[in-house]
């Protein structure tokens, strides 16, 4: 059954086959050549595949069989919150009445969709402890970009033009500095302290009147809650900067603590993480951004407002940073998250975070005798271990990851955060049951033991997958990025 057909869809093409079904052209035909000057017209048709419907379905079905999703099994990819995606959300997002809507329809005939946007602003504001949320950003990184532009706009509106720096911890996600740079800031990294949190002294050193803001995820990428958060926010605010919250790790603290209360001024959420919308093999996601009151004027336009019982799109926002993306964001992703919140309720969200934290700590405890855990104390929804003991024997985090593949697991995130050697970042989420955790723990322990006994035996993994280890160097050195090119 496990035969892999290596052919590309192009390589299955046979001239003359068709897979489409289209209505006949029922209007009087026109001569295309007579309408368009010859030089406008294509000489050679694009070489799209010529295949029948069954070929399309089989091709992509086979491809799907070479892919691993959350429904395939455990997916403890740290920082990614790969929780189960409830099926009802998919069903609702597929309803014609939501999916088949043009964004520029008269609001009089899109009140249903506008209500979803309006309500989500309210829900997410409450969850974040913020005043207002824009749903426009398409993902976390774009949320960051949006937030940073708001920071810029805010300082500019106060004619505070010297604020050119954004501070990010060295444990931060790559999108943080990348977004800051794109938004026109200078990026300043601060090191983490011994305890894995922001080094307050180091922070103090870089804080001055050129600081526009600080970006922080809390719990941070080591899975630790920044205990000094109130002090940090005080310090940043004191020097006139704003605090940006990278909400990728919000799954630890829903209903337990709120970035707004911690002193953050801006925060994004990853609906495709915390709010259970599926990740689609890489997207689409959604990265709503919440702000405190004083920053509301700057958020992207339009904003959905309610006038009496009627929803309107408010474009008239003179201080707005403008648009970061077409229209109103990834609506159908927002809709799925809406459904999730409606079914979970306040208590459900809190329970989710609690269970996520319990599960992470359970794995941490069970593995502590086998792996080095740099910060081995109570963690939040994830923790980072180091395979350095194993690496000494020649078994790297990568090898461990590949061995997990053979045991039916998606491996944890590896080599992130950058501040931990041979990092493996494990985030089980709350949707996994204890048997799954136990089986994964057993696999990890078994690998650790084998790494001691027979390190070489672990180097050939994976063996049960459709392909074995792939040559990434070759791919980058002489890039082949498209068929026939």
């Amino acid at each position, binding site marked *: 059954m496990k035969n892999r057909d290596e052919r590309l869809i*192009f390589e299955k093409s046979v001239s003359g086959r068709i*897979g489409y*079904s*289209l*209505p006949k*052209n029922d209007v009087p035909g026109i001569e295309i050549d007579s*309408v*368009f000057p010859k030089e406008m017209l*294509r000489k050679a048709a*694009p070489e*799209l595949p010529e*295949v029948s*419907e069954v070929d*399309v*379905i089989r091709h992509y*079905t086979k*491809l*799907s069989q*070479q*892919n691993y999703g*959350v429904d395939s099994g455990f997916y403890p990819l740290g920082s990614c919150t790969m929780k189960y995606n409830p099926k009802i959300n998919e069903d609702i997002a597929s309803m014609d*009445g939501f*999916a*088949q*809507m*043009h964004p520029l*329809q*008269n609001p009089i*005939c899109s009140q*249903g969709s506008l209500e979803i946007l309006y309500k989500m602003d309210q829900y997410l504001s409450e969850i974040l402890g913020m005043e207002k949320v824009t749903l426009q950003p398409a*993902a976390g990184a774009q949320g960051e970009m949006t937030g940073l532009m708001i920071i810029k706009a805010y300082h500019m509106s106060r004619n505070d033009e010297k604020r050119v720096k954004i501070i990010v911890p060295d444990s931060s*996600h*790559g*999108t943080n500095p*990348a977004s800051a740079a*794109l*938004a026109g800031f200078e990026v300043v990294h601060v090191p983490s302290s011994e305890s894995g949190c922001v080094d307050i002294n180091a922070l103090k050193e870089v804080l001055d009147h050129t600081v526009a803001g600080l970006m922080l995820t809390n719990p941070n990428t080591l899975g630790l809650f920044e205990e000094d*958060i109130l002090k940090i926010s005080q310090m940043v605010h004191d020097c006139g900067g704003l605090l940006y919250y990278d909400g990728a790790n919000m799954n630890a603290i829903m209903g*337990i*603590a*709120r970035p707004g209360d911690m002193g953050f001024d801006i925060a994004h959420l990853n609906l495709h993480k915390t709010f259970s919308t599926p990740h689609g093999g*890489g997207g689409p996601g959604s990265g709503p951004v919440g702000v405190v009151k004083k920053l509301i004027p700057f958020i992207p336009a339009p904003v959905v407002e309610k006038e009496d019982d009627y929803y309107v799109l408010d474009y008239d926002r003179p201080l707005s940073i403008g*648009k*970061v993306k*077409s229209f109103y964001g990834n609506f159908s992703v927002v809709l799925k998250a809406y459904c999730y919140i*409606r079914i979970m309720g306040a208590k459900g969200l809190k*329970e*989710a975070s609690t*269970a996520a934290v*319990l599960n992470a700590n*359970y794995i941490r405890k069970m593995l502590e005798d086998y792996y080095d855990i740099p910060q081995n104390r109570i963690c939040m929804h994830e923790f980072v271990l180091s395979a350095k003991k194993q690496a000494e024997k020649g078994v790297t985090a990568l090898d461990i990851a590949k061995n997990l*593949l053979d045991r039916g697991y*998606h491996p944890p995130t590896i080599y992130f955060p950058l501040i931990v050697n041979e990092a493996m970042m494990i985030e089980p989420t709350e*949707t996994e049951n204890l048997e799954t955790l136990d089986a994964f723990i057993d696999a990890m322990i078994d690998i650790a033991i084998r790494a001691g006994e027979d390190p070489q035996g672990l180097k050939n993994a*994976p063996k049960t997958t459709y392909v074995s280890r*792939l040559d*990434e160097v*070759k791919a980058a050195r002489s*890039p082949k*990025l498209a068929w026939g090119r």
Partner: protein
Amino acid sequence: MLRSPYIPMTGEEQQKILDVVGVKSTEELFSAIPEELRLKEDLKLDEPISEYELKKQMQGLVEQNFDQSWSTCFLGAGVYDHIIPSTVKHITSRQEFYTSYTPYQPEISQGVLQATFEYQSMICELTGMDAANASLYDGAVALYEAVILASRYTNRNEVLVARSVNPEYRKVLSSGLKYSGIEIKEFGFYHKDKTDNDSDSSRTGMINQESLEELISENTAAIVVQSPNFFGIVEDIKTVAEKARNAGALSIAVCDPISLAILESPGSLGADIAVGEGQPLGLPMSFGGPLLGYFAVKKPLIRRMPGRIVGETVDSEGRRGFVLTLQAREQHIRREKATSNVCTNQALCALAASVYLSTMGKEGLKEVATQCINKSYYAYKSLVETGQVSKVFDSPFFREFVVRPEVSPQKLNEELLHDSIIGGYDLSGEYPELEGCWLVAVTEKRSMDEIDFFTGKVRNICQGGISVEE
């Protein structure tokens, strides 16, 4: 303990875990959070409801939406109501695709990786470019990224943008570039306005080459042109590309992918970068999102591209396989020096586009494009023949055209709603120079009957007849 179908932990298991972890209560787990930050009360959200109740409520909500399964859409302006073959949803709803993450572990991700490689290849075929990335958020963002690339590549800081580029794109561009040090200069299009005399060239709706020329300088990083432009009119990409090349700038073409089944590709016409919106390729309009930004370049720019890129390679046994590649460009490695901050993209939408393009195939896509032309021309002629709308431009167009009805577009659209027709785009707002003009899109999905009904209604409304529900 609250019980939820999404949280398997039982009370007993919770206790077991607490014991293993060595804490007494779940509260203790959170003791790192300062006491004053810990919420004392539940979040103020609506009361939870069950799956069935939710569905019922949502059915109530969609009744307030006019959706295109029963209304008839003549609205485009960047998002189009095309026929979506049944294959698309059947494939994208395979859990192996839609519930997976970005393919960081290639050995168990060949599905997404190969599909993305094929998507990139199809985009290259359509655009005539050498390489494409794995997707960006939407066409507007793709344009923004293209401009960033051009500015960094040329080390210049001015970008010349045609005013006939989709206003939504121009807005995203201008907010994105606000603090980037890159300046946007707009150049216009030929149209007839009050001061114009009725010369032929003044109403082509194509870019004004002279005003473009005036703007070109040694600061020009890129020239941006859209074709078909926002008015549906096919532009002369070739001349623009030449001008850019001569000025040491890059040319960026924003192209509709369906049109490329018939229209010459930006690659062949000399453009350096092609970007655009992939939504017409099998994605539902989804109230504007998710969309699909495609991004393709000529060879010299490959290592400058933003976003994920999939490349072909071999496994340890020499079998063909696919991986994320050229990662040294990306944020997780290069951090603030990355070509872009993109991490999560629109992978599933790219998959949908691939399934769409495979299903349509070489011939099918051409048929779609041909019907778009036939039907939009038919609608255009029919409308003009009513005597109630007048022509605005006189160049060849694709799928979409501008007319000036006797009644304001706003009023017209409102009236048409009574007949479940979503009318065209009112150009008055974004283009004061086209006050009272109406941008009408007609895809292959519209039947002759629907078009006739539509033109009939337009005639009636313009003639002052009141539309009555039939």
